Structure formats: structure tokens, C-alpha cells
């Protein structure tokens, strides 16, 4: 674990961890509110936003892409609400219709536009480019204390760290609101907690986390991290505080194990090439969820019929 690790693996692993944790945190509440699909929806709808941003700005740069993605995420959230209210359509179906339509529009736009000269394609949108977020100037662990080398850190690391810090801060500040309103929205409103804006804010914060992560690691990790770590965590405990901590542990574990296995797994198995880190991270989170389903101490509770619903 020397200079080479710091150069080629440290920053992608850190970015993977930060992206995973940033998505897993709001995922806990989305799952308990039975809105887990929102993460899926958001990560699909950012594609047209990014393509439009590229067409308008002419460059593949972080800022326009983030703005475009955020704008389309907000458009999608509003559209979902509209389809739900005006069309009287069930929420899951409304989400499904909106995100597939917008994603398809994004694919069509991408095909029609001249993106051959730049690194923007459907595969990139799905898988991101985690492996390329390396720190070439690093000469070893000492570089962590070298301002000149630190200045050459991939900018995605800083942005992802900021996004993750914002998600942690929001979770801590609004913890009691989120807990009460997620369990019992009516009671929360009776207490004077603005439950409806809070729910909307949760979706917007999730969208921001998804967009920030999408740019660095692609949509496949985003989709996996909104659902797999929180769902696995719910199977480990019946305490919300511990569930959120478990989800952070699982997200981190997925990112580290997924990255290492993508890079070295094929070699260990006698192959020669590494595989997509994003794909492997998502797959590992799925395996963790599978193991939690089989062996988690609180697995009988998830998906059980509402025990209080009869009466």
C-alpha cells in the first residue's frame, strides 16, 4: 500500500465512499416512506438535463452539468406530482412514467446531438468514470500533507465531500422532524412540524445528492445506494438511529469492497482485465442486501403486512 495506491486507488475509493454515504443517508427515510423509487427516478431523469446542459454550453464541464441535472430533477419531481394529482395516478406509476419518459428523451437527444468529440455517452452516464478519478501528482502518503500535490486532487473529490457533508448535516439537524413525520405525518403536522415541505425537502436533498454522485460515479451506484444499504440496514436492527449507522457502514463497505474487487478480483480469478468499479460497487451492495435478507436478525419485519392495519 504505497505510492501507487495513493496515486491510483485512494481518491476513487474516497469518492466512492462519499457518493455512497451521501445517497444512503436520505435513502433510509425514502425507504421508510415507501418512496424508494424516487432515487431511481432522479438518477434517470438527470440524463436529459446533462445533455441539454452540454448542448447549451458546448462543453462537458461540472458546473453546467450539475445545473442541468438539478434542473431536470426538479422538473421531474414537479411532473411526478402533476401526473399524480391531475391524472389521479398512483404514485409508483406516476414516477415510473415520468422517469422512463425523461430518460428516453435524454437518450434520443444524446443520439441526435454531436457528442462524438466529447466523453458523453449513455455508458458514461450509467457507469460514471470512477477509475479515471486518479491523483497522478501524488508521490505517496506524504502527498496528503503537500499543498502543491493536494491542489491537483480531482475536483470531484471536493464536490462529493461537500455533498456528503451537506447530507450528514441535514440528517442531523432535521433528525427529529424526519423521524416523527416519517412515522406519523398527521401527528407531526398537529405538532406544527411542516411535514409536507419536509417531505418535499427530503426529495430535493436526495436529488442534489444523486446529481453530485451521478457526475462522479454514474447512475448505477446512485440507484443502488439509495436502496441497498438502507434496506440491508433495516434488516439488521429495529432502531432508526442504529439503522442509519448500519446503512453508512454498508455503503462504505460496498464502495471499498466493490472498488477493490473490480480492480483485482478478475486478476485473482486468473483474468487479465479489471471490471467496472461502479458496476461492482452496486453489485456488492446487492450481495450485502441478499446476505442481510438471509441472516439479518430483524428480517421478519420488513415487508410484513401492516400489523396495525386491521380494525
Amino acid at each position: 500500500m504505497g505510492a501507487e495506491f495513493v496515486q491510483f486507488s485512494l481518491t476513487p475509493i474516497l469518492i466512492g465512499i462519499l457518493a455512497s454515504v451521501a445517497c444512503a443517508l436520505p435513502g433510509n427515510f425514502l425507504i421508510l416512506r415507501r418512496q424508494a423509487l424516487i432515487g431511481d427516478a432522479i438518477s434517470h431523469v438527470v440524463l436529459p438535463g446533462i445533455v441539454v446542459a452540454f448542448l447549451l454550453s458546448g462543453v462537458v464541464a461540472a458546473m453546467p452539468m450539475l445545473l442541468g441535472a438539478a434542473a431536470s430533477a426538479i422538473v421531474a419531481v414537479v411532473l411526478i406530482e402533476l401526473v399524480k394529482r391531475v391524472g389521479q395516478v398512483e404514485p409508483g406509476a406516476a414516477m415510473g412514467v415520468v422517469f422512463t419518459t425523461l430518460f428516453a428523451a435524454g437518450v434520443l437527444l444524446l443520439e441526435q446531438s454531436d457528442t462524438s468529440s466529447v466523453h458523453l455517452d449513455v455508458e458514461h452516464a450509467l457507469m460514471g468514470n470512477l477509475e479515471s478519478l486518479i491523483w497522478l501528482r501524488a508521490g505517496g502518503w506524504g502527498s496528503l500533507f503537500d499543498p502543491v500535490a493536494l491542489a491537483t486532487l480531482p475536483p470531484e473529490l471536493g464536490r462529493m465531500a461537500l455533498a456528503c457533508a451537506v447530507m450528514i448535516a441535514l440528517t442531523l439537524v432535521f433528525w427529529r422532524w424526519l423521524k416523527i413525520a416519517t412515522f406519523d405525518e398527521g401527528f407531526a403536522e398537529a405538532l406544527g412540524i411542516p411535514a409536507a415541505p419536509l417531505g418535499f425537502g427530503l426529495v430535493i436533498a436526495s436529488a442534489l445528492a444523486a446529481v453530485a454522485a451521478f457526475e462522479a460515479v454514474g447512475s448505477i451506484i446512485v440507484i443502488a445506494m439509495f436502496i441497498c444499504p438502507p434496506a440491508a440496514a433495516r434488516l439488521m436492527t429495529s432502531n432508526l438511529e442504529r439503522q442509519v449507522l448500519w446503512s453508512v457502514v454498508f455503503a462504505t463497505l460496498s464502495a471499498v469492497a466493490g472498488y477493490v474487487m473490480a480492480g483485482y478480483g478478475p486478476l485473482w480469478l486468473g483474468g487479465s482485465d479489471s471490471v467496472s468499479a461502479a458496476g461492482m460497487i452496486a453489485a456488492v451492495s446487492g450481495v450485502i442486501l441478499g446476505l442481510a435478507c438471509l441472516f439479518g436478525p430483524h428480517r421478519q419485519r420488513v415487508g410484513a403486512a401492516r400489523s396495525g392495519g386491521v380494525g
Partner: protein
Amino acid sequence: MTGTAGTKDVVAARIGSGHRGASSGEAALSVRGLTVSYAEKPAVFSVDAAFAAGAMTAIIGPNGAGKSTLLKACLGIVPRLSGEVELFGQPLEKARHRIAYVPQRASVDWDFPATVLDLVKMGLFRSVGLFGRLRGEPEARARACLERVGMAGFADRQIGQLSGGQQQRVFLARALAQGADLYLLDEPFAGVDAATERAIVDVLRTLKSEGKTVIAVHHDLATVTEYFDRVFMINVSPVAEGPVAEAFTAETLMAAYGGRLAATHVDELALAGTRV
């Protein structure tokens, strides 16, 4: 409906007497011109009501009569199309700390990862806020509320493991933790065992003896006379209001429930008019 005109007379008479009754004391909750609508159909239409302070009032009416909606509109949980709500003579926002609310038990997902004590502590939110301490004295208060509903031994139990009656007691304990002056309960006796019903009634009577006001949406007409002092009868619009002895009669029941209430059933009820 051939008896429309007659029904209206009953309505007018009963509401009139209700207002006289309510004006003698301070109203804990008063509503003027309240209308709530889901989609196009009004769920609650033009309701005027004054719920007497220090009394136990049952809100009764047929299914879909807007009983729960009335409570929710008073608490600002569902938006009002029109009308005003005052609690102890103050607008809702200024009096929130004086109200406790027990929603319908089936309105929440009991698989939520929380213990009984966690749930009761939610009732302390207004006194501790977003960051205030929940351990120590506040926790002792929450445990005392569990004690009052006979659930002290269940503090660390997962809420998903409770029976229906136990869930309802825990909901009541959470409302007690709010330390309010006015208790609004939505069907507190729905689907609970006899022992729980007894326990809940005892707690509500204790609250009344402490000078608190209790208003409950109630569905069991057979126990109205036994449990409550006053009734508020509603079928989208108010039908009757007043002390049980005056407002809970065969005529008002027919006016509120119409054909939905079998005549034989009315005979079996402990009605004010038939028990002089």
C-alpha cells in the same frame, strides 16, 4: 326522502339548543363556517361548533360524515376551504402547545423501526424541540405516561410487536406526554380489546377530572351515554350538538344516520329520550 322538512326542523332545534349550552362556559375549541373538500365533494360543509371546555364530547355520525376530517381540519392537517378555528379563544398556531392528538391507529406503519419509548417521546417534541435533551427528566416523563396507560413494562418493546389494543394505549401515552389541555382523539376505541377500552376510558375520565377537555371521534353508539357528557353529531353538516341528555335522541340519530341506522338498533340504544 319524504321527511326532509321535518328533519330540518330537528336539526335547527338541536343546533339551537347546543349553542345555548355551549355559551354558558368557555369553548375549548370553536369552529365557524368550516368547509373542507377532497376533490369536488365537500367532506365537511359549513360547520359551526363550540366544544365546551372541561367536558368529554363524542363526535358521532355515519361513515364518510367527515368526523375525522373535522378533527384534522381543526389541527391544520387537512387544508380548510373556508372557515375559522379557535382554540381557547386563540388561533391554532398560538395554541398548538395546548393540544394533544391521537390519530387513527391504522394510519401509521407499525413496522417503523422504533421502540414504545421512542414513540412516546415523540409527544415531547414541543417541549424539547429539535435539539433539546430527551434523556433524564423528559424520559422519566415519557415513562410516567406509559405507566398511566398500563404499558410501563413495554417501554423497550418494538412497536411492531404490539397488539392493536397496546398500540392504542401507546398512542394515548404519546398524547399524554404532550401535556396538553385539549385532547383530540380519532376513534380511540376502534378494534381494541375490552380491557384496553376500560383503561382508555379511565385515563380520559382522569383527564376530565383534572379540568382537561376531551373530544373523541366515536363510532360505537352503544357507549356514547356511558362515556361522554356531550355529543356533536355530524353528517357533512352539523346535525345536533349539546349534552348527551338533550342531543343524543332517536330524532337526531335518524337525522344524522337516516336509513343507515336500523330502527331496531335505535331501540336498543341507551337514548336520552327513552330513559327518563
